């Protein structure tokens, strides 16, 4: 039996995240624990929590899981694992250990598919140097998979959302469009070549990008996932108390993503993200509507968005290109906090 996971879901990957607006309202009622060893928590909208063990070592903790983004179970496992581990890379940490989190409809799908998902996750974790030492499975439909990951980091070398400074440039390391392409794939509108490229990008670990960040001792970065480029840029601007200007024309896109969105293929998650960002957003009056909506496309296992001091932008870009992240582009700038947190221009 050939398994097609994609037929089981409406929203795949990070598109299935709960609305950021809702989440923000709910989290207000959840008290944050007070402990001087908690170095990073959700207060700064960060990718992972960081807990100091001693002066040399802190732990980075993160978890992520989601419904299928592609038809093939093995590829889904790889993508989910790359996405889960990415949060550790975004903080500048080294991922070390992980646990599987799985929801699987045992009555609906063959057990081979279950094994294939886990195998994909295992292989991707191994590539990242992560040992999976356990996990937990619930019988549930549709399937969902991801990892809870623990990483190591030096307590003074944490890269956070709060580290962007006025004058920095913003570099994005992967092209945008996985949400649009996945929606287009379900409707048979997306090109095969673009689907393959999107899958390749989603499987690609953010490891090499993180190494470049560490080499240049960058302070501010995040990975672009479910809240879209605009949503994550906004979280960075808020945490850093600055404003961010993105030049949408410079944002690298996967293949024919622009054409797809021009045909109206705007996933539901994009409107959720727009709702969340809107009150903090100003766009130039003639901003292309398609480019605007691309900024809200939910990415699965998206690239790193780094805040880079202006004098080293060229070197960082050159290193990222050499590391095989050939789409890496300088897409915007950080400015002093102004009346809006985020500006999108043509």
């Amino acid at each position: 039996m050939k398994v097609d996971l994609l037929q089981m879901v409406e929203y795949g990957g990070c598109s299935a995240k709960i609305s950021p607006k809702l989440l923000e309202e709910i989290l207000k009622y959840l008290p944050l624990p007070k402990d001087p060893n908690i170095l990073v928590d959700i207060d700064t909208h960060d990718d992972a929590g960081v807990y100091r063990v001693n002066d040399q070592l802190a732990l980075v903790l993160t978890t992520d899981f989601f419904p299928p983004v592609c038809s093939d179970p093995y590829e889904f496992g790889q993508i989910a694992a790359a996405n889960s581990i990415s949060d550790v890379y975004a903080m500048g940490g080294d991922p070390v250990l992980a646990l599987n989190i799985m929801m699987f409809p045992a009555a609906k799908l063959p057990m081979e598919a279950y094994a294939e998902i886990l195998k994909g996750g295992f292989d991707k974790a191994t590539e990242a140097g992560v040992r999976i030492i356990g996990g937990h499975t619930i019988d549930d439909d549709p399937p969902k998979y991801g990892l809870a990951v623990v990483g190591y980091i030096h307590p003074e070398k944490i890269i956070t959302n709060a580290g962007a400074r006025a004058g920095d440039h913003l570099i994005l390391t992967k092209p945008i469009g996985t949400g649009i392409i996945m929606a287009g794939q379900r409707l048979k509108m997306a090109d095969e070549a673009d689907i393959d490229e999107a899958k390749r990008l989603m499987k690609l670990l953010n490891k090499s990008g993180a190494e470049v960040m560490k080499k240049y001792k960058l302070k501010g970065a995040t990975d672009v996932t479910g809240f879209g480029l605009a949503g994550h840029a906004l979280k960075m601007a808020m945490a850093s108390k600055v404003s961010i200007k993105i030049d949408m024309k410079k944002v690298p896109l996967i293949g024919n993503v622009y054409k797809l969105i021009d045909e109206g293929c705007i996933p539901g998650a994009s409107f959720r993200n727009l709702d969340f960002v809107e009150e903090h957003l100003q766009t130039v009056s003639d901003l292309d509507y398609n480019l605007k909506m691309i900024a809200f496309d939910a990415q699965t296992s998206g690239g790193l968005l780094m805040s880079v001091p202006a004098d080293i932008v060229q070197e960082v870009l050159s290193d990222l290109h050499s590391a095989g992240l050939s789409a890496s582009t300088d897409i915007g700038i950080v400015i002093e906090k102004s009346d809006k947190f985020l500006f999108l221009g043509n």
Partner: protein
Amino acid sequence: MRIVDTKGQLCPEPLIATKRALKETAVGESFIVLTDNLTSFNNVSRFLRDNNTAYKFSEYGGIWTLTVTKVSGEMINSKAEEYYTPEVAHFEKGDFVIVFSSDKMGDGDESLGLLLIGNFIKALKDLDKLPAKIVFYNKGVKLVTNTSPVIENLKDLEKMGVELLCCATCVNHYKLESVVGAGTLSNMYAIADAMAKAGSVIKP
């Protein structure tokens, strides 16, 4: 009036159907969109508002009816044609091949020759177009060994998609088999073929 029935469809299908209908409708004319999904209704409405399109709606028994009127021929402020080939930063390859037959550049002082070839290789990355292939033969193969001062630069070029062809006979002759750090070992046919197919062959 034309009816676009999207009942039973999930995002973004109703939006795609609406946009298609909008394109096919003449200015001043109207059409109806039906949806039974609240999210789709919200998203289609939002899209219409964002694009200055007039619409009215009603809801009955969980089905939303949107009456959409096209008010302008200039439907959406998009410049589609400008973006069909987005400017993605990438490495363009030329059709030229570079050949290294020595680990030094030019005749004369040996240390100068080493320095020059190093600078030449480092500069390749910054050319408008990268070489299609780089060929190493005779003493040129020493450039691709692990102790070569330019090995990291050559690895970078390889990662950027430039194929490095190293003459296997030469590697064996100089007994470098265990220290080759980049490229692929090739026979003379592959090397001759690469040079024959090149638009130009550069020998520094």
